[in-house]
Every structure is written in C-alpha cells, then in structure tokens.
C-alpha cells in the first residue's frame, strides 16, 4: 500500500492526468470554434470536413504514434524541435487522437442546439459574439460529454504514448506504459494499483456521462 505514496508513483499519476487533460483541453478548444463554422456553413466543403473527421475517428492510435515518431524524430520534418520522448510530443499525439472525436461529436451534438436555440438568441438581439457565448452555455452538457469522451479515449492509450514518449522514468512514464512495463517485469503490485486508478477513472467518466445525459433528459 505504501507504494502508492512514493514520489515515483505519484509523479506517474500526475503526468498521466497532466498530459491527457492538456491534450483533451486543446482538442476541445480547437474543435468548438471549428464546429460552429462547420455547422453554420452551407458549403459542400464543410460536409466533406465532417465526413473526413468521422473517418479519422477510426484511425488506430499506433498509426498516429508512428506518424508523430517519423515527423519528430531526428531525421524527421520537425526533428529540429527535439520533442521526441518529451511530454510535449505525448500531448501533441494525444491531441491528434482526440481531435477527430471531439470535432465529430461537437458537430453532431451542437447542431440541434445551434439550429433550435440559435434563432431564439438572435431574435432577442444578441450580437454574433453574444450568440456564440450563449450557445456554448446552452450546449454545456453536450460539450462536457464531448470532453469526457475525448479524455477517456486518450488516457487509456498505451502503444502510441510509448512510441512518442519512450516510457522514460521520471520524465515520460505514464500509468498505461508503467502497467505494461511492470507486468512484463513480473512486478504486479504497482501494475495492479495503477490499474485500479485507471479503472476508477474509467468508472467515474462513465458515471459523469450518465449523470450529464440524465440531466439533459430531465431538461
């Protein structure tokens, strides 16, 4: 039990949440404005972008890891940035994984909000910026669900995180990569504790989504 109070253990947990929350946050704040543009646009290009985003949702995470590795490795296009095996590249890779999901889900969940309440908001004299802010508030439960789903997609990712982070102790070691490593070493105690934390996280995420959808139904 003392193992979970060690600084190594706590730094692994802290890094996991920092990386995944940062990636989710970036994915959501970039997906929301783009979703508004896509929802309100009448062009065919907007529809193509949505279809493309839907398609990208099914891209395997390791493929994203591979692309990131190739682009950011020493001989890669952005190798000069020296981001390989740093938490920054882990955030970038997780962002790329979460972005198509958050974009696609934001478009589909905010579309009814924009078309139904949007007209009411405009009719009450809101400016374009006031309208967007009000729509964000009106779609707050939908957006929270999107963020939770995005987070749950990236927090459990192993292969991709291992490829771009390198699982360096004290620097890029996160819960999933530690579980994989410690299990292979036969060191089950730490793996089990980390597994429990991941499991509790997953259960909490599901509980949150359930509570949000319940509130949505009530209203």
């Amino acid at each position: 039990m003392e193992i979970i109070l060690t600084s190594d253990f706590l730094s692994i947990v802290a890094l996991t949440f920092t990386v995944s929350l940062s990636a989710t946050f970036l994915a959501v704040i970039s997906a929301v404005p783009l979703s508004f543009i896509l929802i309100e646009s009448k062009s065919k290009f907007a529809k193509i972008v949505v279809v493309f985003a839907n398609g990208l949702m099914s891209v395997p995470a390791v493929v994203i890891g591979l692309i990131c590795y190739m682009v950011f490795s020493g001989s890669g296009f952005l190798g000069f940035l020296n981001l390989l095996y740093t938490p920054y590249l882990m955030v970038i890779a997780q962002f790329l994984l979460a972005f198509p999901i958050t974009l696609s889900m934001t478009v589909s969940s905010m579309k009814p909000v924009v078309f139904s309440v949007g007209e009411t908001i405009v009719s009450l004299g809101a400016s374009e910026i006031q309208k967007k802010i009000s729509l964000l508030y009106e779609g707050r439960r939908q957006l929270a669900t999107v963020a939770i789903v995005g987070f749950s997609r990236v927090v459990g990712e192993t292969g991709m995180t291992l490829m771009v982070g390198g699982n360096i102790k004290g620097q890029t070691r996160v819960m999933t990569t530690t579980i994989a490593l410690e299990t292979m070493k036969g060191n089950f105690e730490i793996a089990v504790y980390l597994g429990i934390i991941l499991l509790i996280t997953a259960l909490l995420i599901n509980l949150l989504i359930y509570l949000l959808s319940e509130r949505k139904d009530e209203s």
Partner: protein
Amino acid sequence: MNLRCENICQKIGEKEILKDISLKTGENKILVLMGPNGSGKTTLLKILGLLNYPSSGEIFHNDIKVNCRDIEARRRCAFVFQNPVLLDRTVLQNIIYGAKKRNIELKSKKIESVTGMLGIDHLLKRNAKTLSGGEKKRVMIAMAIMCEPHILILDEPFENLDLFSSRIIEDFILNLRDFKSTTILMSTHSLSQARIFGDAILILNRGQIVDETTKEDISLKNFDFLKNPGRNIFKVEIKKRENYSFAILPNGIEIPVLTRVEGIANIFIPPSNIVVLAEKDESKSGRCVKSRIVEIIKDDELMLVTMDAGFTLDTLIPRKSFDEMGLYPGKEVYLKFEEDSIEVFKEDNFEKEH
C-alpha cells in the same frame, strides 16, 4: 415605428417561397397575415424580423433601409415563434436575457407586471425546458416584451393554446398596441382573431399577397382562392361542458371549439386547417374523425380533396403528404380538427356576412 418592405422575394433552390411582396405597417397598428399552411407567412415574418435574408428586396424602418447585419435594427424587433424554443435556464433568466443583451435597465416591478399579466409569475424559478407549450409561448412573449421592441412579430401566437392562455395573450397584445406604442405583425389562421386584431389584414397564398382587407371588412369571400370554402360551413349546436365548448357536427360527433358562443351557431372549418392522417392520432389535443376520400377536386401542389366523414367537407393536403400517405379516392383516413382552427359565428352575424 413603421415597417416597410419592397419587392421581397425568397427562393430556396428553384422554389419560389415569396414572390415580390411589398407591404407597409401603420405606426402602432397591428398587421395580420393570413393564408393557408405553406403560403409563406413564417418565411415573410422571419425576413421582416431581420432573422433571415431575403433573396432580393429591401426592408425599411421609418424609411431607413435595414438588414440582418444591422444590430441596432435587429434590436428594434422582437419575435415570438410559433413553436418557441427557450433557453436551458430558469424562466426568469429567459425573460431577462434579451433585455440584458440590449442593455435595457431591468426593473423588478416591470418583470412582476409583465409576468403577472401573462400568468407566469409562479413559474420564474422553473427551468424553461420543463414548461408546457402554452406556458412556453407566454414566456416567449414575456421575453420579447422585456426587450421593449418597437416592432413585435408574432408567428401564430394562438396556435395550440388553450382558451385560458389565448384570452390572456389576446388582452396583452391589444394592451401593447394601445398603451406601449408597439407596431405588431402577426400571422394567424383564425378569422375571429383577424377580426379582433387586424387593423390591416393581408392574405397570402403561394408566396403572394392575394388580398388586402381590414378587421371590419374581412369575410370568407377573402378566401375564395381556396376554392369554394362555403362547403365547410355547418350549422351546429355549441355546448359548454366545464370550461370547454364543443360543436356537435352533422354526424353527431363532438369537436372542441374555442368560443364564447353557445347554442345554435355556424362553424367554418378552413380546408387548410384540417389535418389528414393515415392512422388515428390518440393524442389529447383536437379530435380525430374517421373519414373516406370521395374525390380529388384539384390536383396541384396543394390538393383539394373532398372527404366523407358522415357529412361532406373539403380538405387541402400538400401533394408531398398526399403522395407519402399513398392516398386515393375510396381510402379511409382520419381527419383531425384542432379547437383553435375552427371559426365559430353566431347565426345572425353569419347571415349578415353572407
């Protein structure tokens, strides 16, 4: 403030929804738009309320040209939708939303007075999404009023409302015109409401103004374009039970009506207001009557179809619905009559008009 539009046209794809509409409202008067479903009333109101751009044409507020991008012009208008969608927050927050966006000083006395008059003062803490249709409409009217608009646009404000809500809103609208100097545009299917409100009445059909009249002069003759509407006039007995009125049709079936009249009266069921259903609608509102298609009188985009429901009456059905339901002469269908879609005339008044 007067509102004027010139040569408004609206096209969606190849379909012309509005054709060359020009109109002018009197200052602090009520302009009523009437016409069958699909005639373009809502489209025109949304354009006049600066919510949608027209394909062509111009809009003027006191002879100054305005458009949807002009936020000041938009803030002179307020719109009450036929099916209001309220914000996902409390009724009070909904009511003050528009006023806040327009930087209007919020006085608690005004909120109390408006919500009291509309009978929604007990709902202020409720989430607006949990309200009934009639309550939502009254809240939407309060939201619009709190914005202190110069031009108030009401899209079928009495649609699907019970008698109690209708009366409250009727009084409120007249009060607005007379004491708050508000120019009002409203659409309605109801001849009796046009008679109450229509300082000027425009009748739309297929995106065009086909007639122009006033509350003093309006009669069924203004609707001759609907093809022989006289066939849907019946002499009935109106009975009151608890707070509701019922008309007893020639086949003995009772249908709910919104009226203060009792005893023998005439009713007119506008062909466009009869909903034709392939299956019986078990919902509480209105009344479903089993019927049979007798004849297709006019085969057009809006089809004029004669029905036998134990008595003969005409209905107007959009071609799309007709095709989707696979209708043909002899087929059994259900006719749904909503209480607010039936015009009731005292027998003597009616005789005078015809």
